[in-house]
């Protein structure tokens, strides 16, 4: 069953309809809001990309600088204050001692601290306080010749804190 062709063709002859007023103004407003949202998303993505690049770069640097012979590096690079903590490096935690020394060297290579936001300064101060506390415990452990497992745990904690401190200081030196 089909409608008469002439009836259907009249669909094309139906009059054009004028849109109501005010739509164009709404178009402009909506476009302005969405453009602002797009700009915000782009900036957020760019910032995230920069952070990702920095993290990857730092990780790569840490990987590349990993020493092949930890015990030798300990002897060569550990600051006096740290080496005195472990007059004889036990084989069980020697890699941790070496890693700690390497991180100290990396930290020393960073540019001097600049003016920074309060939250960053607070984070750095907190990390440094915790490292100082671990160092005090290591001194005590060395003086009392405490068990290697105890010292190993302390050195592990020191490495973690040093890594965190390096990342924060590096990010701060790059302007983040």
């Amino acid at each position, binding site marked *: *069953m*089909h*409608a*008469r062709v002439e*009836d*259907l*063709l*009249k*669909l*094309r*002859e*139906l*009059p*054009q*309809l*004028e*849109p*109501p007023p005010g*739509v*164009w103004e*709404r*178009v*402009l407003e*909506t*476009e302005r809001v*969405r*453009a602002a949202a797009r700009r915000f998303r782009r900036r957020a993505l760019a910032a995230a990309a920069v952070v990702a690049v920095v993290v990857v770069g730092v990780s790569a640097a840490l990987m590349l600088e990993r020493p092949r012979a930890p015990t030798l590096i300990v002897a060569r690079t550990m600051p006096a204050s740290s080496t005195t903590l472990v007059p004889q490096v036990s084989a069980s935690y020697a890699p941790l001692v070496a890693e700690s020394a390497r991180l100290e060297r990396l930290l020393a290579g960073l540019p001097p601290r600049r003016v920074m936001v309060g939250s960053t300064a607070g984070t750095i101060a907190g990390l440094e306080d915790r490292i100082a506390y671990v160092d005090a415990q290591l001194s005590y452990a060395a003086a009392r010749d405490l068990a290697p497992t105890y010292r190993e745990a302390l050195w592990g904690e020191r490495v973690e804190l040093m890594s965190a401190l390096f990342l924060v200081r590096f990010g701060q030196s790059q302007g983040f």
Partner: protein
Amino acid sequence: MPKPSPSVPAETLQRAKRGDRAAHAELYGLYSVSVFTLARRMLASKALAEDVLQETFVEVLCNIDRFRGDSEVGTWIKRIAINKCLMHVRSSWVSRRGFAVDEDTVGDGRAGALDEQMALERALDCVPDVARAVVWLHDVEGYTHAEIGRLMNRTASFSKSQLARAHERLRTLLEGPEAETETSLCTPELKTC
């Protein structure tokens, strides 16, 4: 034949691509009537047509700098509008809308008092949403069944069957028995498709 879309001067298009607001306004002036008409006919709702007009030109403004000129600007804009309309047609809200036919297209209930255009417009509004969209795209915009099938994520056969049903419905509405009153023309069970 459908009214041909007005062409946009190349200089206006270039200015629009550079973000010139005056050029954007010119585009709106050139195409807003055809987009609104298309949306109003496909959706049978002035409010929805207004939404489609707004969303279409927001998209045009957002993407005009990427328009490569593979087709006429008017064709590109109309395609955006058709996609917006089909999104409404597919939405459950429109399916459940029932018979919110705009007052401006409904006559006084006496067929003899309506001129042919009003009767046709009113009949078109009483055709189910999907079928009405198919009728408009096929009979007025000149799309093929294959193209309509692709636009609706369906087959060409689907488009053909919808068109046949719509034609049959239109024919009944326009030429049917006089017993078919205002109420019986738009009953909910006939609105489903």
